[in-house]
């Protein structure tokens, strides 16, 4: 069982490749096309990483988070959300790659398997760049928000953050 667990990744690749081969897909061609898409995703988010990482490093080095932490901590404690995820929550609806960079920084600093690292990953995985989605969809269709879409999307984001913090605390806290 343990060996199987350790072989999850190659087994997963094998299963996907077998399934595709049965369907007559050119496996090598599909995988290299997919890997190229992965590189393009990185190309898309790397510039944001290069801008957001230095800003967060500067913020941490300045000592401001400790100063703010003591004033804001009661509010975060009340909501049950780790205060470290504040910047991630602020960026999430605005910029997909910015939020990814903030989450990456949190996971790097606290470890991907720590409670904060997991909370950041769950927040990132269960929400979207709401402002961007609304702007793109509505402008492409040539319509305006009737004043319901944005509040509903932002309310969903808020519930998402609270729920992420709660479920991570329950499962791994």
């Amino acid at each position, binding site marked *: 069982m343990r060996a199987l667990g350790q072989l999850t990744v190659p087994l997963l690749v094998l299963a996907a*490749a077998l*399934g*595709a081969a049965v*369907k007559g*897909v050119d*496996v090598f061609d599909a*995988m290299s*096309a*997919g*890997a190229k*898409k*992965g590189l393009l995703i*990185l190309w898309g988010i*790397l510039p944001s990483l*290069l801008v957001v*990482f*230095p800003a967060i*490093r500067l*913020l941490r*080095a*300045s*000592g*401001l988070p400790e*100063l703010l932490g003591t004033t804001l901590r009661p509010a975060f404690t009340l909501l049950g959300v780790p205060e470290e995820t504040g910047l991630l929550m602020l*960026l999430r*609806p*605005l910029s997909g790659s910015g939020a990814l960079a903030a*989450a*990456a*920084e949190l996971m*790097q600093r606290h470890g*991907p*398997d720590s409670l904060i*690292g*997991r909370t950041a*990953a*769950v927040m*990132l*995985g*269960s*929400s*979207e760049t709401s402002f961007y*989605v609304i702007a793109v*969809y*509505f402008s492409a*269709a040539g*319509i305006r928000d*009737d*004043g*319901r*879409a944005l509040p*509903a*999307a932002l*309310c*969903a*984001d808020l*519930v*998402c953050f609270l729920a*992420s913090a709660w479920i991570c605390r329950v*499962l791994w806290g």
Partner: protein
Amino acid sequence: MVSIAIFSIYLFSILASLLLGNTASAGSAVLEGVHDALRFAPELAAALCLWSAVTELLERSGIGAALARLLRQPLLRLFPRGAADPGTLAALSENLSANMLGLGNAATPAGIRATRGLARLQARTELNTLVVLNTASVQLLPTTAASLRASLGSAAPFDITPAVWVSSILSLLAGLSLIRLLNRTPS
């Protein structure tokens, strides 16, 4: 708006470092941050490429079409007017199945077609429902978040998956309820 956030971080960090006497570490932090980002990039690329390769296999095996069949019933309930129009129904199911598979690039064009269709049908509530479905990010596998964790050496990058489902579904329910609630109040 992100620019304002970044600008504020720089401004307040500089002020705070002066106030707290942390100017030396703050001064070197910016370049270190760029260095961090560059060091992290190859790790992230590895996880993203591997996962994108597997996703491409699944996509070409026709998993999207299978998922679209499964989504038919929920779509008919959520979009009674949109689903009556064959073109809009096809766009809706393509958008949702791409979202569930984490294929953001495939989801957007289909989502735009669905939005245009719903706008033409003047189905305002259904339009807002589509927006919430897209912003709540209901994914079968949180591939980007898991790739990040994998690139930072997580023992089991996908073990957050059930937590992501719970969080997505709760936020989706909150968004859909608010749309229905706002619908009842005259605007």
